[in-house]
């Protein structure tokens, strides 16, 4: 059966190559039959990749240990779901997943748009063919999931901390996001290559971009939540290179999503949009490269591998290609209208672009700094957390403010007077909130206070929009149903505000305290008193060795009255791991987080964290998802819009 898998991948490679070469020839010579043939090749490529994927799935689920990949990533006692998700557990499998999703998306995108965007699709096919050629080449020649080895009795297992529902959902969501960004990129390239840079490519790919962006965003929140409950250091994001690898394309895609609204409304920022979509795509491939090549020190460990060099080459080549394309088509991309005033909605979108790109580039710079310093000085230097936190505030706070100003400021030009008039309620609420927070003690962190007041400002603007709209149309449901993009967008903005409040609350206003406690001793943190009650040792023997779980029990009083426990497991196979105890106060959104650090003599070192409002982060994830779904919801009118445009042009 591995032979079938290998053969299927070779067929995929040939089909992708054909789509690239024949597709290009067909686009240049305008040969319909060849163009159709290239398009079919791309669809057939999905078919053969699906066959290869099926072979791998079967091998994983039946524990066929003659496959090196199955041996390395599953074991007999692994639950079926984790054997399945082992598909993307390793490098080869994740490359196969990339190719599967890419060709699947591509097949759908080119089929749906083959009539209305005939002139553009004829170029989209070879562009995607090119990307697919790279990935299928890697799978055939460099990193094959179908390598066979002498059959073993059992395979390596999956570490227990990765065996949970979050880790089932997190990687595929991220992949659906990463790969999804290839579609708008390919259409943008197609528009430029065909010379038809009108807005059809944007209308056609709007939902693809939104969906990819949503998957990428939600996937990151899932990862953050897993880190919080499972890894147990009390945090959820560490500015680790692999985490940043997902954040950067998401930020670029956010800028792109907003910027295209301006192109649709005003015909401006067209060059920006081409640059942004290419940036989002390149960052998503670069992200995959960073994660998988081990080229940068990260606590997420993936085996260092040979694919690094190939990926870097692909990223460089495709970046040069995009740049050349944009430079060539610059005359076609000139704006239809000019920016009239720095105080206008168009301008706020421009500022939005600038801030998001600045943040993205800052993170990128922090990412590659170690590599660059190693190259140029022979000495690797790193940028630590403070660098990233600092710039997140510098760029994030103004972005927060813009979320509130943007929807309310007038098009074309506004005056300071008019703006103040429109914003008087949000400003008033923000100032009152700020004052109330200072009284409540939030003045301890200046950035925190500023962030909170900005959040109050933005939330007020969103509420006002909903109230006004509902009053005018009579029904909230009708309002949202008929203006999905606008109000769905507001819901997403609200989720970002919730996210900001959660992040600020849990970091700027959180408490961390570590103390050794003897039995009966108490430690106090804001809102809670914790008393060390008892300790229990539970030894166990598993297939991989012996382990002892040491569990400490705490009596808690204050905002919560009850018992909490936390454990530390000493396993002969895995070393030490901690199982944290978390108590969530849903009314306050606050978490009491306890870690049993160490037992020393008759004292136990407990680390206690109070994380105010942290649960808003997870709630924000769901609000984000909901808002995105509202914006994504199919709209028959939009399809008709494309149709009417084209038939008029043909008439």
């Amino acid at each position, binding site marked *: 059966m591995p032979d079938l898998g290998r053969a299927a991948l070779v067929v995929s490679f040939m089909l992708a190559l054909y789509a690239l070469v024949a597709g290009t020839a067909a686009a240049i010579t305008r040969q319909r039959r060849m163009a159709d043939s290239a398009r079919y090749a791309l669809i*057939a490529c999905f078919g053969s990749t699906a066959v290869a994927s099926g072979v791998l799935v079967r091998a994983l689920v039946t524990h066929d240990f003659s496959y090196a990949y199955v041996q390395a990533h599953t074991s007999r006692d692994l639950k079926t779901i984790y054997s399945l998700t082992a598909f993307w557990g390793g490098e080869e499998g994740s490359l196969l997943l990339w190719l599967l999703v890419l060709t699947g998306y591509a097949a759908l995108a080119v089929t749906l748009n083959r009539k209305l965007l005939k002139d553009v699709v004829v170029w989209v096919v070879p562009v995607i063919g090119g990307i697919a050629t790279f990935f299928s080449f890697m799978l055939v020649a460099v990193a094959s999931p179908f390598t066979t080895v002498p059959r073993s009795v059992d395979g390596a297992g999956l570490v227990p901390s990765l065996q949970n529902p979050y880790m089932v959902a997190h990687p595929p969501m991220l992949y659906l996001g990463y790969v999804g960004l290839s579609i708008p990129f390919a259409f943008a390239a197609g528009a430029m290559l065909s010379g038809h840079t*009108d807005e059809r490519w944007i209308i056609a790919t709007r939902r693809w971009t939104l969906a990819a962006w949503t998957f990428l965003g939600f996937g990151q929140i899932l990862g953050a939540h897993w880190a919080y409950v499972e890894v147990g250091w009390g945090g959820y994001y560490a500015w680790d290179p692999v985490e940043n690898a997902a954040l950067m394309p998401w930020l670029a895609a956010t800028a792109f999503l907003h910027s295209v609204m301006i192109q649709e409304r005003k015909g401006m920022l067209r060059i920006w949009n081409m640059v942004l979509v290419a940036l989002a795509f390149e960052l998503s491939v670069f992200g995959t490269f960073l994660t998988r090549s081990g080229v940068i020190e990260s606590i997420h460990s993936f085996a260092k591998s040979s694919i690094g060099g190939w990926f870097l080459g692909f990223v460089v080549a495709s970046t040069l290609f995009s740049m050349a394309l944009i430079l060539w088509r610059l005359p076609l991309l000139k704006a239809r209208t000019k920016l009239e005033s720095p105080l206008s909605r168009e301008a706020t979108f421009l500022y939005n672009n600038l801030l998001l790109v600045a943040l993205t580039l800052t993170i990128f710079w922090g990412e590659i700094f170690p590599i660059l310093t190693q190259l140029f000085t022979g000495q690797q230097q790193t940028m630590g957390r403070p660098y990233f936190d600092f710039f997140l505030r510098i760029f994030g706070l103004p972005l927060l403010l813009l979320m509130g100003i943007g929807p309310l400021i007038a098009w074309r030009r506004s005056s300071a007077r008019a703006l103040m008039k429109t914003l008087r309620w949000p400003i008033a609420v923000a100032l009152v909130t700020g004052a109330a927070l200072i009284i409540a003690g939030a003045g301890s962190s200046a950035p925190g206070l500023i962030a909170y007041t900005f959040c109050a400002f933005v939330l007020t603007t969103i509420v006002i929009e909903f109230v006004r709209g509902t009053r005018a149309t009579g029904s909230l449901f009708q309002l949202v149903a008929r203006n999905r993009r606008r109000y769905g967008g507001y819901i997403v903005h609200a989720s970002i505000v919730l996210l900001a409040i959660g992040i600020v609350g849990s970091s700027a206003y959180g408490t961390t305290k570590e103390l050794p406690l003897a039995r009966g001793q108490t430690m106090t943190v804001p809102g809670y008193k914790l008393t060390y009650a008892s300790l229990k040792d539970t030894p166990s023997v598993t297939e991989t060795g012996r382990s002892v779980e040491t569990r400490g029990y705490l009596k808690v009083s204050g905002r919560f009255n009850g018992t909490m426990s936390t454990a530390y497991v000493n396993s002969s196979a895995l070393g030490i791991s901690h199982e944290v105890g978390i108590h969530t106060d849903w009314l306050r959104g606050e978490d009491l987080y306890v870690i049993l650090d160490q037992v020393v003599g008759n004292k136990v070192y407990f680390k206690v964290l109070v994380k105010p409002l942290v649960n808003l982060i997870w709630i924000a994830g769901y609000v984000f998802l909901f808002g995105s779904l509202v914006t994504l919801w199919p709209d028959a009118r939009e399809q008709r819009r494309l149709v009417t445009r084209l*038939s008029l*042009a043909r*008439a």
Partner: protein
Amino acid sequence: MIALVLGALIAVAAVVIVALPFIRDNGEPELIDFGSESEEILELIEERDRALAALKELEFDHRTGKVDDEDYRETVGPLRRQAAEALQALDARTGKRSTGEGSAAEDLGEQEHVQGDDHDGDSGRDDVGEPAVDERAHQVAARREPDQRNERERDPEREHDL
């Protein structure tokens, strides 16, 4: 053994799929026709849609109170003029391409028919069943148009796709 057979089958299937367009004939022309004229018309359509959408948005914002009366009055005039100009330009362009008198009305009729389905007209053409003749009259008497348009814009049932 089975693997090899299946593999061969996949390869054969791939070749067949790729060869299909060369083997069968679906009656479409050999060369893909894009038409450079279409690009110009598309641009005009975009400008028209943009102008009409801007008008719609202004009406909605005014209705919900985001834009006050003074600002509304200031902005609505130029926007309406822009919309009228865009409509004129587009109709002039599509009208030019007709071969005879009859086809001018045909073109408009087609536009009408296509947009009639689009009964919530995000292009702003919400006039289901509006006779073609009226449209011509609209273009000529641009000044009358804003008032009639205004009425339709005010209809709270109008959807608003932003």
